[in-house]
């Protein structure tokens, strides 16, 4: 069952001679529960794709359907609510709010939604993220890996339809990178969470169910993968 449908997506920056086609007629679908890796060289359009899927940027043309709903037919307010409820964004530089502690950062989207966070769910998530003893710490008091785990917690906490991760390990050492990927994989398997991960790291890509390769704003390959084999390897 397809959760996400991207149809003839185009994103053009600039005009005339300065025109840059960041995404050029991109179409694909993502079924629920799939862990998808998007790879490609710098400037190939990966991050632009992720931002458009996350409702952060608007496409020049084309549609993005999440659960059959056209994301960009919504006004700005509904788009913000869409980001709050239906997607979870993970960035390379974490983008945590420095004045909020780990727990507050994780629950922020839900608090903004006017809902009261479920304490048990929060405790479980913190345990999963191995942040139980760091829940009251400010971002400045956490290591890079811990900050990224907070960022993942924030993305997971509202149980969104899709998690979008932009180079989630780009700012981490290999040990922390492995832990973060394992965490993402675990939540993908345990919660059947759909994930799209943008990465340069081939090892990370190989741990995903599917790999889409981008070049010059176009899909150049779309292959299914058996992550178990990679893990074993």
């Amino acid at each position: 069952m397809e959760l996400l449908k991207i149809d003839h997506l185009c994103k053009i920056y600039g005009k005339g001679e300065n025109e840059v086609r960041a995404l050029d007629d991109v179409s694909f679908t993502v079924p629920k529960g799939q862990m998808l890796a998007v790879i490609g060289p710098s400037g190939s359009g990966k991050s632009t794709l992720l931002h458009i899927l996350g409702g952060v940027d608007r496409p020049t043309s084309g549609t993005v359907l999440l659960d059959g709903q056209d994301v960009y037919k919504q006004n700005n307010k509904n788009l913000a609510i869409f980001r709050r409820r239906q997607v979870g964004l993970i960035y390379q530089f974490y983008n945590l709010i420095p004045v909020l502690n780990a727990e507050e950062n994780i629950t922020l989207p839900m608090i903004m939604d006017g809902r009261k966070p479920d304490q048990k769910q929060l405790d479980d998530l913190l345990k999963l993220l191995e942040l139980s003893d760091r829940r009251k710490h400010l971002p400045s008091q956490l290591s890079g890996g811990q900050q990224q785990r907070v960022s993942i917690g924030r993305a997971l906490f509202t149980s969104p339809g899709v998690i979008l991760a932009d180079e989630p390990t780009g700012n981490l050492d290999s040990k922390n990178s492995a832990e973060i990927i394992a965490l993402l994989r675990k939540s993908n398997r345990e919660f059947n969470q759909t994930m799209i991960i943008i990465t340069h790291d081939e090892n990370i890509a190989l741990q995903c169910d599917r790999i889409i390769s981008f070049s010059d704003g176009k899909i150049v390959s779309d292959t299914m993968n058996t992550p178990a084999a990679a893990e074993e390897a």
Partner: protein
Amino acid sequence: MQFESLLARRYIKTQKRHSLLTVCSIIAALAMMTVLMTCFTTLTSCMASRERDVRPYHIQMIDVPDAAVDKLKSYSHVKEVKVIADYEIEDENGSKTPVHTVNVTLEKGIGDIASYYNKMCEAIGHDDFYGYGRVNINRTLMDYDRIDEDADFHAVISYAGYAIYLIILALILRLVIDTAFEVSSKERERQFGVLQSVGATPNQIRGIIVREGLLLSVIGVPVGIGLGLLLGYGLFRVILYSGIIDAFFTSEEKALSLLHYEIQPVPLIICAAVGFIWVFLSALGTGTRVIRMTPIQAISNRSNTIKKVKKHSVFGLLFGWEGKLASRNARRQPKRFIVTVLSLTLSIAMFGMFSVLVDNFTKALESTIVVFDYIGPMNYDFSFARMEYVGEPFGYQEGYRLLEESPVLTDTDFYFRTSSKTVNDEGVQILYVNEHAWNRLFSADDLEAPMTYAEFEKAGGYVAINGSENALSADKQSAQLRTRCLTAIPEEELAKYTEDELQEMVENDTITRTGGYKRTDSVGSFDLSDDETGNEDIFAKVYCNYTETDRTVKILSCLKSDNILTNNMALNLVAPVSKYENEDQAWFGDMGKTVMMSTRLVSDDDYQAAVQFFKTNSREFTNYEDHFSMMRQIRSVLGAIKIGGTFFIIMFAVIAIINMVNIVSTGILNRKSELASMQCVGMTDGQLYGMTIIECAQFVIIACVAAIVLCALATWGTHVFLHDVLTLEAEEVVRGNVGIFSSVPRILLATGAAFVAALAASVFPLRRMQRETLVDRIRTVE
């Protein structure tokens, strides 16, 4: 071009908003300092001009003979001797000597005025001058012209006080410039880190910031001084025409010829120097702070890491998570937060407090002046006395008639008092009042008229107010008076006795002596600035025969009043003036009486006409008190203080607002990426604006509450002060009009204005920021 200069110029050009805010801060600081400097020099110069116009001398001497005048002219340090009056004095032998009244102007450096003057008197042959009322030393003008050593001391005291004030102000202004630099450099810490990482030395980094500061001050300092001069001139004109001219000068031309806006180069040079030094120090301080960080700290922006936040806040409780976030955001840089809130608090409190305090003191002053009257609250424009002259029948009627018939005066009341005794030797004062005075007597809250004036006249008795009850009968229905009737002894009769013999007769109670005023040309020929009463030359001793008679008088009513100034225990009896004319006049004979008259202007516009009336009829009145003019001068000075004060408050508020705008707008722009992150995880535009509005509200709400507390304390302090130094009536007038929280509406108004400024400072950058895509903003490295 050195690379520091190149980069400094580039930063100024590319970071226009910061450059503009920094220049604005420098301009505001310099303008305020210049205004204060020029105000001080202008005020001093105006006061000296006014003094020079009213009393154009350092020493005024009377009865100076011709030879002494010539010696004076050549005496050391005498600049000018101006003869202003020529007349003759008669010695004991009857021979007349021509003498003069002279105004002496001195040069600087006379040393101690007392010894200088004594020596001068010796030199001119007038060694008995000093201390005999024949010299008038104009201490004020001597201070302004710095003539003697005391003047130098006074100047030092005066300048020291002013300098302390200026230093405090300069430090506050330093803070403004400092904040502007810190805000500007904070945003560029990363760039400085990058420069350091590619080889720039700490001194070069500091050099960039210092050069940038000096380049900005090259624009800011002269513009600030120019603006200050313009504003100062505007302030001078506004104060000049706020009533000062009318109150203190006879004509606008006269005022304008004496009062000038004083621009002196030295204060301006001081302003410029202080401006450049402050900018240099601020830039240097900022540069030093920047280079204390390692390049990687600067690049990774680690100096901005938040290590501690408040878990709970009032704003969080009031406004939910937006309030909580706003509260934490505002306190990211506690020092700047405190400085901003403090400066905002002070400007709001000063705005709220100043006008309230001026109102407070105006009312207190008015009420203090009002109580200086014998029979009750003095709410008249003019009061004066018609004196009894020796050799003329006592007649108040003529003066009263003149006042009654004057088209510009109204509500004339009068009373006169006589002194008497009871048979028990208790003191008694009898006040004979007309209807206006009777009504005034009972205009105070604590005293109710026992009857109307018509009934009073008809009843034919006295009303007792305060004083010893021993003077009254047991049933308080009557009093036993022992009145003394005086008859002046004719001059030819007096000539038969020597002065010693007369004195002996007085001591033996054979005759008595009283006082009276001699008709001379000088009597009553006062102008509005003079008060010639009490002059020995016009006061005469009158020897009288007397008879004493015991009388029983009818007491209609006994009253007590706190509002009547009865300092002695003498019994105060009040009777209608008709009773004096019809009956009591015969009891007292030639005994000295003074008629006190008070009158009001029909209209404030008639003041000059009233002045002319008193000048024309000056022989009929003396002891003139011009309450109207006095109050007008007080109001006009207070008005000028109000205008000047308001101006400074506005200047102060501008500085506080520049600070706040700087901090709020920079705070928004610095958090561009962070705010975008929040939007990425679902914050709506409404929530973003809501949080920002709460952030702004925090500054003004805290400042507002603090200002209300400050104002309440200040008003309470005023009450305590008034209680200590003023009369009960004055204090009650103030308490009745100025409550502890009287300034709250003004504070709320100022808070509203500050909130609008803060809102504009945050909403505009927010809107501009919103034009960028979320993607672009989230990529911004903080």
